[in-house]
């Protein structure tokens, strides 16, 4: 893990600020993909019966897209607050997986950093951040990269929520712009390079199949099921077909 093991490449000497801005830049495609959702949430939540300030407060303090959408739906249906909170808990369970994956990298950071990383943990910041952490490039400031990406995502979410609250009714059907597809192509471009051996291929296929089969499950549980099934499939096939793969990687 020595800093001086860079493979012949000149040390570009990453600093907190270069890492921060690189993270902010690299998450842009995912930020673009989130724009329509932010606007739709702002519009939807206010029509569901949440006050404009409550809608914005939810984006500011909860900052979890899927559960915010589901909460808006439950509020419209006059659901008891405790049930909404419990549903939020279940919908956000996948963040446990993300947090555990980030753990080896975040372990030595000060408490304040861990709290910031946790508060801003989303599908998007995880995807972009873990990619940086797993890259071979040596840097002591990869957490700055993560924070740059996560903060950009956060600010955009607030801005789009505000836009939805104020002008949502005027914006023609944000759901049909197709901008959300930016997330899909970005994630595809991130997944493909992982698939270098059979166990990884099997893991990804199993996850994809289970995700489709479990799509009807409530509270995003299909996603959890797919992820866990994929991980198990990968680990098992690693043991079964390529007993040496674990050493190579």
């Amino acid at each position, binding site marked *: 893990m020595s800093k001086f093991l860079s493979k012949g490449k000149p040390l570009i000497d990453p600093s907190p600020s270069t890492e921060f801005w690189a993270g902010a830049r690299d998450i842009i495609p995912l930020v673009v993909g989130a724009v329509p959702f932010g606007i739709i949430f702002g519009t939807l939540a206010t029509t569901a019966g949440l006050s404009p300030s409550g809608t914005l407060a939810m984006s500011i303090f909860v900052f979890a897209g899927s559960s915010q959408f589901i909460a808006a739906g439950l509020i419209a249906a006059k659901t008891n607050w405790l049930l909404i909170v419990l549903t939020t808990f279940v919908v956000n369970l996948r963040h446990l997986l993300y947090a555990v994956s980030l753990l080896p990298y975040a372990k030595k950071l000060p408490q304040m950093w861990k709290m910031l990383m946790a508060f801003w943990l989303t599908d998007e910041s995880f995807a972009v951040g873990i990619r940086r952490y797993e890259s071979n490039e040596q840097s002591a400031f990869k957490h700055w990269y993560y924070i740059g990406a996560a903060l950009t995502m956060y600010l955009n979410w607030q801005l789009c929520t505000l836009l939805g609250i104020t002008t949502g009714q005027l914006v023609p059907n944000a759901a049909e712009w197709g901008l959300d597809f930016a997330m899909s192509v970005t994630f595809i*471009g991130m997944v493909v390079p992982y698939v270098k051996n059979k166990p990884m291929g099997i893991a990804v296929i199993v996850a994809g199949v289970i995700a489709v089969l479990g799509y009807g499950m409530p509270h995003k549980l299909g996603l959890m099921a797919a992820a866990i099934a994929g991980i198990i499939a990968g680990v098992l096939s690693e043991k079964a077909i390529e007993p040496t793969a674990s050493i190579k990687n």
Partner: protein
Amino acid sequence: MNEFLIISGMAIATFVIRYSMFGASHRIVLSPTLLKALRYVPPVVLTAIVIPEVLISEGSLAIGYGNARLVGAITAILISLITKNLLLTIVLGMASFFGWQAALSLLS
């Protein structure tokens, strides 16, 4: 309807999930087996998010040339395999999605 209870409850529930692992990190020892398993998390989760987005339209499977997302996704996979360039994958994947969508609406 008590907005304050809903929002603060949701905020606490979400933060507890996101933070619990970080907060206990000094007490958590990840075994080699678990570390190996964690390597699968990013590709597996991202796949589980993307595949339904691409294949399911209004609640049912949409596999065919009429699904512009599928065309865009296949393009993205090919571009990624060939170039290994993330930005190019995003740009060309989006372009083929929008292009196919435009072509479909011209044809119909």
